[in-house]
């Protein structure tokens, strides 16, 4: 029944004491938000925590949401702010990370491990896996302002106008960033274009 309600209606019902409404909201947003956060912070452990933070903030502040904008805009504003805070801390920590805990679950293989060939012709699954990894890397290498726009559009399917509300820049700037991001991805992954065309 809750599936038919708008995001804003679900939040209103949660504010009135209906936990099922919030569960539906979590169901709708946890995956895209998680991917948005993960591609921003690049570590699963951090992404887990930040996703939890986003929803906990919504739980705690849901009554502050006035409905002037879309709920998705609010959610991504929270997520983006948390990611920015995290990035700032990471810049600071790079200078003191010698005794930091070891790399987490998404530390990633070394370049040597990635490029070490087996000598045999790579099969299709291996290429697909390699492509996925390369796409992830290419997205992580995008400039931050392009990456966030790309992720909001690509992962969440947000309209450019809503993305502009989250990021706080004009809509045309958002569209330019998106275009630059796509062009960069095309350049970074040009080796795989033929392969992707074959898969279509």
């Amino acid at each position, binding site marked *: 029944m809750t599936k038919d309600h708008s995001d804003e209606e679900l939040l209103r019902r*949660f504010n009135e004491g209906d936990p099922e409404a919030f569960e539906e909201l979590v169901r709708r947003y946890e995956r895209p938000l998680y991917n948005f956060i993960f591609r921003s912070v690049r570590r699963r452990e951090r992404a887990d925590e930040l996703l939890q933070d986003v929803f906990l903030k919504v739980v705690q502040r849901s009554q502050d949401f006035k409905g002037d904008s879309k709920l998705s805009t609010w959610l991504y504003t929270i997520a983006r702010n948390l990611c920015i805070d995290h990035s700032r801390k990471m810049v600071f920590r790079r200078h003191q990370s010698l005794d930091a805990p070891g790399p987490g679950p998404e530390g990633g293989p070394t370049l040597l491990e990635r490029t070490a060939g087996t000598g045999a012709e790579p099969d299709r699954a291996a290429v697909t896996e390699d*492509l996925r990894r390369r796409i992830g890397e290419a997205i992580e290498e995008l400039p931050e302002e392009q990456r966030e726009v790309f992720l909001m559009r690509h992962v969440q399917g947000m309209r450019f106008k809503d993305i502009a509300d989250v990021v706080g820049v004009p809509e045309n700037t958002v569209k330019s960033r998106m275009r630059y991001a*796509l062009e*960069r991805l095309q350049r970074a992954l040009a080796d795989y274009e033929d392969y992707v065309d074959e898969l279509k």
Partner: protein
Amino acid sequence: MDCETCTDHLVELLYEELDEEDAARARTHLAECEACAASFSRIRAGHALAARLEQLDPPVAVRSAVLAAARERAAERAPAPVSEPEPAATPAQPEPIEEDGAWAALLRWLGSFAMRPQLAMALSLLLIVGLGMWYLPALRDGDPADLHAIVDPAPGDEVGPSAALVPAEPLPRTEPAGARSRARDEADVPPRGATRPTPAALDEAVAVAPPDPDARERAAAESGRAARPSPGTSIEEADLDPRAQELAVAPGQTAELRPAPAEPQATQPAPTAPAMVAEDSERSPAATTDDSSTDRYGRGLANYRQRNYREAASDFESVIERPGPDPRLIPSALHHLARSQRGAGNCAAAVRSYERLLAQHPTYSGSGEALLEGAGCYQRLGRLGEARAWLERARAIPSVAAQANRMLVVLAQQERGAGAITVEGNGPASSTPAQ
């Protein structure tokens, strides 16, 4: 359409956000302009490549923790149940016309406060204080020695209850559950010769309980008697300690106490009304006056984020010890406790927490990550054998298998460096992780 306008519209055209008229113009321009067509081709190729991006699923543990917090918050926000059973419980009104009168409205308004936990707490406190006050004249009339005992501290004492009021032997009465019981445990005066309670504990006890242990016992005894439907039986008298029996009030005084409606709720959490009481029991004083487990959990996360690992560990420990009505936060809190300890550099404590997490919550969805992190701690402690065992376990979990393999490679190098590696004849390729 010129090139500049067309370029502005390219991504909208790609994502079909352009209205039909502008889209047609842009397509016409693209058919005529090679530069714009090449640009569009590039971003379309980038879009096609990006479509192969793997979408990750968030861990179930996050959802569980979030939903537990949401349920707790929703329960706080849910409107107080309308007292539906009230008309059925009370006899029918003889004059229905009064339903609409000012008196009925006033009753309804007063009734709306009836089951509010804050009001119940205030009434309980008032009752307890009232009982204490009520006993003072009884003591004066009954035994002057007891009056002096209250006023004069015991020899050698500066503050605190008189030794005359300390029971000579443990009282047989069972303690009521809840915060009052806890406060009482902390403030109870030990037998003679033992260390006296701290002033803080006494303050806390005074805030919620009668001022001295005996008076509390008497109050509990009296209120327990008043709460029972058939007072005066030998059983309830036998429950009272001898001092309380000596101080038993006159029948007239007892009769004054019995009609008090809030007394049974104040003395024991016995079930009275169906749904409302269930809800009230969830909102026990301990739950409402203390931070909720969600708040403590959120504070722990914030501290963890700020790298205040010791404070974070303390917060998560409190969530584990006092999880509130919904214990589903416990596995996540335990996991974060381990991470906090690891962050604080206390790997030994961290591995204990990881072990506890994996032992007590074998189905915890973040167990793969916990195994990896715990293995990392073992590595840092130089316990390479245990690190290897945990990584081997992690390899069986698909979501972390790849990372476990990578860590095994590093571990094998570490083992070689330490000269600790032993070739296992039939072992699972100790230095060559499975792909």
